């Protein structure tokens, strides 16, 4: 068993869109709240921390219940509850930077203007990267709809590009017919990297009442069940776009599964649901991967240079 608390000299760091990561494993947006997680491990040890989606004003999210269980998965409909960008800029962001974390600010919006406001406010602050979430299935406007329409997405990203010099990751939705055209639109618009996948739309029913378990009715499916689907998306985009940095997300709960994403063509991964089931899972996975890469020098060398591979 790995002791994640013992000081560790990371052996296999990487560079994503020019930003150095201590290791190729980040936390996934919406599954990391600093105030809760900092009591469990030194979060600055992660490759990067992707924050909860940040909106221009505080959002209260969806009514409860917000989640349901499913085989090897959970279904959630938080609806991007967050205290807004102003709060974020004086609270989580400075705290994370003070701890030495590499920070990815996940940006949420109901409209192009929402995204623009948040990106503008962040431009002059210490966030290392931005992750534009155009793929949340749990908000009624914006969110996923932008992420499923290449034309709208191109327009949005091209506009945001004019507002910031920060490395900009676009987080893609799996709820699409043709991921490659969406990915290309994001890259053409000026994305520096892609992260994928966000959750798949899904739901469960209470077999006593016959009603949906989640108040919002549908939610987003995450967890190990997503793994093969997410790998398929990453691989297909990597075939089409050999050079864009890709962060693989979906069902990573071990170093071996993180490794699968690297083989699929990802430059790094983010860990979501696994952290819900054990607070220290992201760091454990980072450590497992660090050891697995010892025996794969070729892959480790490419990673160290922040290159992609096929």
């Amino acid at each position: 068993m790995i002791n994640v608390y013992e000081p560790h000299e990371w052996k296999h760091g990487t560079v994503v869109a020019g930003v150095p990561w201590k290791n190729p494993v980040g936390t996934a947006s919406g599954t990391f709240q600093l105030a809760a997680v900092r009591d469990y491990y030194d979060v600055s040890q992660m490759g990067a921390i992707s924050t909860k989606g940040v909106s221009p004003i505080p959002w209260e999210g969806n009514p409860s219940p917000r989640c349901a269980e499913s085989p090897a998965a959970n279904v959630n409909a938080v609806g991007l509850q967050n205290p807004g960008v102003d709060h974020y800029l004086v609270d989580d962001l400075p705290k994370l930077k003070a701890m030495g974390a590499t920070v990815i600010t996940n940006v949420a919006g109901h409209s192009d203007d929402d995204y623009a406001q948040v990106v503008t406010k962040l431009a002059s602050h210490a966030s290392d990267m931005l992750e534009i979430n155009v793929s949340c299935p749990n908000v009624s406007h914006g969110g996923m709809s932008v992420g499923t329409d290449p034309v709208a997405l191109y327009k949005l990203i091209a506009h945001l590009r004019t507002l910031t010099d920060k490395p900009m990751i676009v987080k893609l939705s799996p709820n699409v017919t043709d991921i490659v055209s969406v990915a290309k639109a994001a890259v053409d618009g000026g994305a520096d990297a892609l992260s994928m996948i966000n959750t798949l739309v899904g739901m469960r029913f209470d077999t006593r009442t016959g009603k949906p378990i989640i108040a919002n009715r549908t939610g987003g499916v995450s967890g190990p069940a997503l793994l093969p689907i997410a790998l398929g998306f990453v691989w297909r985009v990597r075939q089409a776009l050999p050079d864009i940095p890709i962060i693989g997300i979906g069902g990573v709960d071990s170093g071996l599964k993180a490794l699968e994403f690297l083989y699929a063509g990802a430059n790094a991964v983010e860990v979501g649901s696994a952290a819900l089931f054990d607070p220290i899972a992201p760091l454990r996975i980072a450590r497992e991967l660090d050891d697995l890469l010892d025996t794969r020098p070729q892959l480790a060398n490419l990673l160290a240079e922040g290159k992609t591979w096929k």
Partner: protein
Amino acid sequence: MTASTPVSQPMDTTLQADTTLLGDVPPIVQYALQAGFKAPRHEVRVHHVQPLTDGVIEFAIIDPYIARHAQAGQFINLYSHDDMRLMPRPFGVAQVQGDVVSVIFAVVGEGTEEFSHMRQGDTIDVLGPLGKPYAIDMPAHYVLVGGGLGVPPLIRTAQLLRQQHAEHTSTDTASRSVTTAVLGYRNVHFADSMMQAYADQTLSIDDSQGNVIDVLQHDIAQHITVVTSDERGSGHMAVDEQGLPYVLLSCGPHGMMKAVAHWAAEHHMQCQLSLEQRMGCGYGTCVVCTVDTARGRLKVCNDGPVFTREELGWN
């Protein structure tokens, strides 16, 4: 690129002292404590599993860490062995005896079904203790109002009140708290004997006889004196015959707790209520478990599960 940063310490400095358990807990917990962090999810042994009544199980694990830390009304997450069921199953800590921590649950679904078939010596994963506890520091007459599977965390609360009692007894008799338990059941009074071990008085009722409000009305109301609380300037305050302020702590079905909060408001009692909500993580990282309060949408798992009547706006 190679980076190295020494493991930094968490902000919560109260965690740092506790390195006394190092010998008794699983290595991962030892490492966490040594580094000054909370225990992560860890594997423990089952001590016993015992049916209390039809479909209600007392489930006990050996866990010195949780035993030492579980405060009033806190809960723990249990996890299934079957990865088809990844989500946490939260249960209020019901009792601590030495290193043995017990919870009491109803078999309602797949997870509780699985746990109910476990036996002494089996292993199970656990995280906790979790959640904001009942505030029981103030000397008071605590009225513990529990309904059904809301009773267990109140047993632990009574146990802690009894411990405070024992610690205070020699030095400061004036500030001793008093505990009255008011318990409502569907039928079998499965938790009375446990509660009696700790509470000064245990009153209980089942659906065939009435409900907890009947008990409060019949057995508590007459002992209340309402005084003017100058100190706080908050107007009226209910005290008992010894002059101890009444504080009502409740856990149980939503409807019962609303009625209890209402009754407490009418009788000028402070009132703290412990809520349930479906949870994604149980420790505050996913924002799945919210409840609407006067302070906005808060997380049941670590802004609660205990909220005051005022926070909930239950008047």
